[in-house]
């Protein structure tokens, strides 16, 4: 246990310091190459570097490979490969805008290493009631889970700092839940996700100096999904991610098809004269989490972000309660 604690501190430090140290250089490199996009929520025209995915992946790889040298396992390899493949999918989308169906299908392919390495347990465990053995259905669940978590984080990446801040809360909640269910090895492997997100938040928070882009958001989401499957905490992980799941659900149930956010003509959120965010009254605009938050009146970008963080903390608390309920059988 002492070994694990020391290694846990070491890989957390590596994850945090790598992203914290590399990101400013990445911002400069992206700016020099004119890889910048407009931040539409700023009154003064502001260009922000994108994508931050490479520094996020660097932090994850540096820490997970360090963990692998201390505790070699197929589980860590599966996390590394799945996360790296998701990064490549996102990076391809960052470089060239691809169709709405491309990301879910390619992310489904990213889940294949989990199946090939056999690092899953085909039982779905529910709190209070126990588990069900679903060998065939579980394979479909693996293929389904990575696109869902990847796209859920990608779809919530709409305001400065939200994706990285939200991921920080959700992934630390997941680590706590993994400890509660006594899955210490995967809890250790999950630590870098929280620390990478936290370090990236430093540059992503209002006013953003860098956006994660699809490569960053899909990397974070896919690693979260991989940890959920490998750690055998699928239901708990889904609960901690509920605000992002709701956002995807609201969007899909209002547009009724899988399309990219950028393809939407009617914007769900508009600006007031003093450039606060306001819910659009356009009935054809999709319903999103941000639009619902703004339904009570205009707010600043920072205020909306903090409401989303409060929702994330609430879901994290429900996930932790659920983890404790896993030990109770009725």
């Amino acid at each position, binding site marked *: 246990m002492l070994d694990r604690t020391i290694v846990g501190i070491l890989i957390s430090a590596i994850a945090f310091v790598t992203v914290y140290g590399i990101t400013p250089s990445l911002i400069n490199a992206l700016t020099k190459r004119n890889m910048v996009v407009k931040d539409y929520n700023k009154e003064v025209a502001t260009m922000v570097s994108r994508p931050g995915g490479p520094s996020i992946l660097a932090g994850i790889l540096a820490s997970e490979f360090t963990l692998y040298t201390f505790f070699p396992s197929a589980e860590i390899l599966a996390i590394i490969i799945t996360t790296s493949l998701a990064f490549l999918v996102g990076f391809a989308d960052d470089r060239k805008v691809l169709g709405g169906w491309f990301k879910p299908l390619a992310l489904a392919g990213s889940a294949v290493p989990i199946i090939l390495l056999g690092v899953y347990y085909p039982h*779905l465990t*529910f*709190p*209070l*009631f*126990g*588990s*069900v*053995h*679903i*060998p*065939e*259905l579980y394979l*479909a669940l693996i293929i389904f889970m990575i696109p869902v978590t990847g796209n859920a984080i990608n779809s919530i990446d709409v305001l400065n700092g939200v994706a990285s801040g939200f991921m920080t809360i959700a992934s630390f909640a997941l680590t706590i839940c993994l400890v509660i269910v006594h899955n210490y090895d995967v809890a250790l492997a999950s630590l870098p996700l929280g620390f990478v997100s936290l370090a990236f938040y430093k540059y992503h928070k209002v006013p953003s100096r860098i956006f994660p882009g699809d490569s960053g958001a899909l990397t974070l989401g896919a690693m979260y999904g991989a940890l959920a499957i490998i750690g055998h905490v699928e*239901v708990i992980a*889904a*609960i901690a991610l*509920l*605000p992002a*799941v*709701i956002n995807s*659900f*609201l969007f899909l*149930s209002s547009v009724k098809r899988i399309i990219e956010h950028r393809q939407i003509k009617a914007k769900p959120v508009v600006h007031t004269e003093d450039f606060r965010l306001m*819910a659009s*009254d356009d009935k054809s605009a999709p*319903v999103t*989490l941000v639009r*619902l*938050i703004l*339904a*009570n009146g205009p*707010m600043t970008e920072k*205020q909306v972000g903090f*409401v989303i963080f*409060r*929702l994330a903390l*609430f*879901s994290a608390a*429900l996930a932790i309660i*659920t983890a404790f*309920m896993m030990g109770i059988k009725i």
Partner: protein
Amino acid sequence: MKGTPIFFYIFVMWALIIGGGGLLVSIIAPLSIHGFGTFDHIVDSIVKAAIAMMLVVLWILVMSKIKNWIFQKQISH
């Protein structure tokens, strides 16, 4: 507090996940289908998978109805 209906919506989603899990584990999982000889296992899996998928569709419909009910004012706004 801003976003209170969304907190309630998340709580309802959580309760439905726990309840749906209970239904899956207590009622659907113990079901056993016989009479198809060597195909018993496959038929059993297909039927359970179909029921699970129907439950997911039902869950989405229920969540959609609750969403409309909770957010009616906000959406029309």
